[in-house]
């Protein structure tokens, strides 16, 4: 693997090369490396680009890596990945997309991920987005995630986009069954002229279903961030969304909460807080011997951790 690809692999997956267990690497628009494990099968789709990740029922403690790496400037990559998680399984999936763009053309990756999570299965899904490179071409990542959570199942999504991505439009749709839960935590840093949209549409259909949608973000420079979350409580359920943003320089941050209770036992909460770094936080860290810039950097880094 080339150095640039290795760098971005390390950034998005925390690994230096081929991992153990089941994996599938998508490099410059081509599914290149696959491996199945005893309980996890990765099947290349025949009708369109992408893979099916099929996890057998009762699988415990497997780790699946599915990184997407791009260093061809100008590539426009569209991929469909479907995840079929068997009943009672517990599995950890590390996805992520890294773009290295040294060219002048826009490089784009759009991943459409659909999760079918079986009864009582527990899934943790990590997704990091990262861009680098000296080129003038934009780095664009637009994921769409569709989630079906069966009775008693849970999905925990950790997503992070720390700089380097010029434009992102992220859509997450979920239908949540009885006693099922969805937890998402996203962390976003935008700088310069970057733009990031995130959009959640959650249907709490099941009795005692729940969701927690948490976004922490920092907008610097002249960047723009838009956070939309629609939560419909259609049964006895609990929905929580929180958007917490630090705004700096000349940035724009917009948060649009939308909660609808269609059932008398739906409990829905939305919190949104946007503001600059509190002056007393800077003062506190300066009183420990940091200068202004160091204090600001520590506060931002901690906030996005």
């Amino acid at each position, binding site marked *: 693997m080339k150095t640039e690809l290795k760098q971005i692999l390390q950034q998005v997956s925390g690994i230096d090369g081929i991992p153990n267990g089941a994996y599938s690497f998508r490099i410059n628009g081509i599914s290149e490396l696959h491996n199945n494990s005893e309980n996890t099968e990765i099947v290349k789709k025949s009708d369109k680009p992408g893979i099916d990740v099929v996890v057998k029922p009762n699988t415990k403690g497997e780790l699946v890596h599915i990184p997407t790496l791009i260093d061809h400037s100008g590539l426009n990559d569209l991929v469909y990945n479907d995840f079929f998680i068997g009943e009672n399984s517990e599995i950890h999936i590390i996805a992520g997309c890294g773009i290295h763009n040294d060219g002048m053309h826009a490089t784009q990756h759009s991943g459409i991920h659909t999760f079918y999570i079986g009864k009582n299965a527990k899934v943790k899904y990590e997704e990091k987005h990262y861009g680098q490179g000296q080129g003038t071409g934009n780095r664009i990542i637009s994921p769409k995630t569709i989630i079906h959570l069966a009775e008693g199942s849970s999905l925990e999504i950790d997503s992070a986009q720390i700089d380097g991505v010029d434009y992102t439009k992220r859509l997450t749709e979920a239908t949540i069954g009885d006693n099922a839960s969805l937890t998402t935590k996203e962390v976003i840093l935008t700088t310069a002229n970057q733009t990031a949209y995130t959009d959640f549409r959650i249907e709490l259909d099941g009795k005692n279903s729940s969701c927690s949608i948490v976004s922490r973000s920092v907008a610097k420079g002249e960047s723009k961030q838009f956070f939309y979350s629609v939560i419909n409580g259609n049964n006895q359920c609990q929905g929580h969304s929180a958007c*917490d943003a630090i705004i700096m320089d000349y940035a724009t941050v917009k948060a649009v909460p939308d909660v609808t209770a269609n059932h008398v036992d739906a409990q829905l909460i939305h919190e949104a807080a946007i503001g600059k770094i509190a002056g007393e*936080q800077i003062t506190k860290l*300066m009183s*420990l*011997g940091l200068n202004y810039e160091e204090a600001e950097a520590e506060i931002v880094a*901690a*906030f996005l*951790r």
Partner: protein
Amino acid sequence: MLEIKNLSFQVENGDDKQKEILDNINLSISSGSFVAITGPNGSGKSTLAKMIMGIEKPTEGQIFFNGEDITEKSIHQRAKAGIGFAFQQPVHFKGMKVIDLLSLAAGHKLDVEEACSYLSQVGLCAINYIFRELDNSLSGGEMKRIEIAMLAARDVNLYIFDEPEAGIDLWSFQNLIQVFKNLLTKTNGIIIVISHQERILEIADRIIVLEEGKIAKDGNSGEVLPHLMFGVEDCHFYGRRVNF
């Protein structure tokens, strides 16, 4: 050595009136001493501490630290020069862990053992706290103790604690006094504790009483303590009346 000369702080008080928060303060505190500052709410104690740390700038007067005029120096320059301050109201940081703040205070990355030693001093069962976030989930008393541990982790020669006892339970209180004594032995510098607590005032080498921005009394505890009673009538400022 800390020297404060003719220090005043005035603020605009609405309709063009000046309000004197600190009024011509003169003080000299030598190294190796443990000084308590007390006085009624709003008398200017925290403001004086902030002036020394550089968080507020005086309208008049000068501050000298170890012979150097620091009046125009920034907060971080004063921190580098050896001044440390534990806030009356500790600051919350989303995402920052207790061990992160202690590391920043110590000036190097602390391992778990070192971080624990600072927290244990203030009576916190360290392992339960070092990886907690400094957000609103910590109680007032917990934040307060972490603030004290933070200052104890600093290696400075002027330590200022602003009402460290507030919200702290009795068991921790014993530890607290030990923290001051240890710091004093370790640095042979200056410990200034702003306090309303009789037991802290009793062990101080010197008590300075501020009232309405002025030094009302200044002396050793034997001289000052018996006369400590603010206001008149039924103002039980220290929880009991003192006859004199």
